[in-house]
């Protein structure tokens, strides 16, 4: 490969592993070409990042088939919208990136089908992307964090991750349910609206709470467990609604669970000697979590990096971002291999674009 000539990679990203459908287009510029070894750090240009969210009624969670139906009916409009925003056409694409997993089967499948079809119509190579790696690469691109410990917190995942030898290694994670899942389910108990998201509404309630209610605190090494906390607080909310206000319950739930997350993140930082921490995933938008993480990092002489709703909530451009990096290292996914998988661990990806 000619490493001297300037080169660009334009990537379309399609994400629909849960209830958000996101389409993004990113352009990477390598002013002096793509070197065959060393870390890739192209100039990042965002061309489009559009999203549409499926929200079930208050008190209900989203079901895979309803989410898939939403994605199917919305995706063509959203892809068109992304191209309009980007002011480019399909002929300008170098690759089409889609979420291979992890996530809910039916929604993943509905988006992969579109990716496969577009790839064949336009004759553009496909790149299958790990959703979690997408979050990490997006966070790095937006914040400029170099080699942070990553806390990945969302509706389906809770992981403390650190990069080592071309792998995003998982140091700690939940032993049962994800933190976002716990928050969502408690929002249902309180019948909080799912719009814009259950977690956002819990956060607003928590801001008005002041009384700290003691809850189970479960940290095991660098792992955490949330299911016991959920059953405990559900019981409080249902059996003694007069004694505990929803505001105080939300406040205490956040304070307790976030302290657990900060603790395991700090332990990972101490373990590997890192000073930077990057928070990604939907729950990463929570300002209180960012604040607590910031206090911890400051006490260690470090810094916290976080992104806003455009990037920490599931989106298409993060899939384009991670896919474009892999593509620059000649990674593509053949049509035969363009399946999806509900289980795809962060540490299964060979991170070829880093050293």
């Amino acid at each position: 490969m000619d490493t001297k000539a300037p080169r660009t990679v334009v990537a379309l990203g399609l994400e629909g592993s849960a209830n958000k459908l996101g389409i993004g287009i990113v352009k990477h510029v390598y002013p002096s070409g793509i070197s065959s070894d060393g870390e890739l750090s192209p100039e990042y240009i965002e061309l489009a990042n559009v999203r549409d969210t499926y929200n079930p009624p208050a008190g209900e969670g989203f079901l895979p088939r309803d989410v898939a139906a939403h994605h199917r009916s919305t995706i063509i409009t959203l892809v068109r919208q992304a191209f309009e925003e980007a002011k480019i056409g399909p002929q300008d694409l170098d690759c089409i990136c889609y979420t291979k997993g992890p996530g809910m089967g039916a929604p993943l499948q509905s988006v992969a089908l579109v990716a496969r079809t577009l790839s064949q119509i336009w004759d553009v190579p496909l790149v299958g992307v790990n959703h979690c790696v997408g979050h990490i690469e997006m966070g790095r691109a937006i914040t400029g964090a170099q080699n942070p410990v990553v806390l990945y917190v969302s509706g389906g995942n809770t992981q403390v991750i650190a990069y080592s030898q071309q792998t995003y290694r998982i140091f700690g994670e939940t032993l049962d349910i994800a933190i976002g899942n716990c928050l969502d389910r408690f929002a249902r108990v309180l019948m909080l609206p799912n719009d814009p998201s259950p977690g956002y509404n819990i956060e607003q309630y928590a801001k008005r709470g002041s009384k700290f209610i003691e809850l189970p605190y479960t940290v095991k090494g660098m792992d955490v467990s949330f299911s016991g906390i959920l059953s405990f607080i559900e019981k409080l909310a249902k059996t003694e609604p007069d004694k505990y206000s929803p505001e105080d319950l939300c406040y205490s739930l956040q304070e307790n669970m976030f302290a657990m997350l900060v603790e395991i993140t700090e332990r990972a930082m101490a373990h590997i000697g890192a000073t930077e921490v990057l928070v990604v995933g939907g729950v990463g938008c929570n300002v209180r979590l960012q604040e607590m993480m910031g206090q911890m990092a400051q006490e260690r002489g470090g810094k916290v990096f976080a992104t806003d709703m455009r990037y920490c909530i599931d989106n298409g451009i993060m899939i384009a971002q991670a896919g474009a990096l892999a593509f620059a290292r000649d990674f593509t996914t053949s049509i035969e291999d363009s399946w999806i998988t509900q289980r795809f661990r962060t540490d299964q990806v060979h991170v070829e674009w880093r050293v």
Partner: protein
Amino acid sequence: MAEQVLIRQGAEARVYKTTMPDGRVAVAKQRFSKSYRHPDLDAKLTRGRLNQEARSLKRCKEHGICVPEVIRVDKSSATLFIEFIHGPTLKEWIVANGNPDQENELMATVGRILHQMHSFDVIHGDLTTSNMILDSSNQLVLIDFGLSQISSSAEDKAVDLYVLERAFISTHPNSERLFATVLEAYSVSEAARLILRRLEDVRQRGRKRDMSG
């Protein structure tokens, strides 16, 4: 007050080497409060872990498991004074050592000690190869009981082993062989075999987790 030398600044405690009034060399583990967490929660965790660490160490000692001796618990400064153990951590030893036979032998010792500890219902809570020290007489000593608890449940014991397995995977390249040897030596009773079956469930829970929670 005797001179204190900081030997480790952990995530939630500063560890000093110090000399007690009677001349014994000791470790002072001082827990500090965390400004990010609610004061009530902070007090509960700091106090609870200080006491639990001392309690679990004493329990292990009573049952002949090699741990540092508790010298004094100072509640006002949240400091635990324990016997100083000189020697490399198991992690350091594994990295420096290249002899597979010696390694296997030591892994079997780890398995036997953990089985013994679990048989007295002590759950360590933070098992890693950094929390085990090889002392001057080549005896394996368990340290850092800050997250420990007393429990007879197979689930808690299985999770204890799972935490160690994860630590092995993220720290040591040939972790699979090493940890297999640990489990083989652990599996010496019917109760232990039950815990290992439970460990399989805990592992599956981790791997099968997907976005639907």
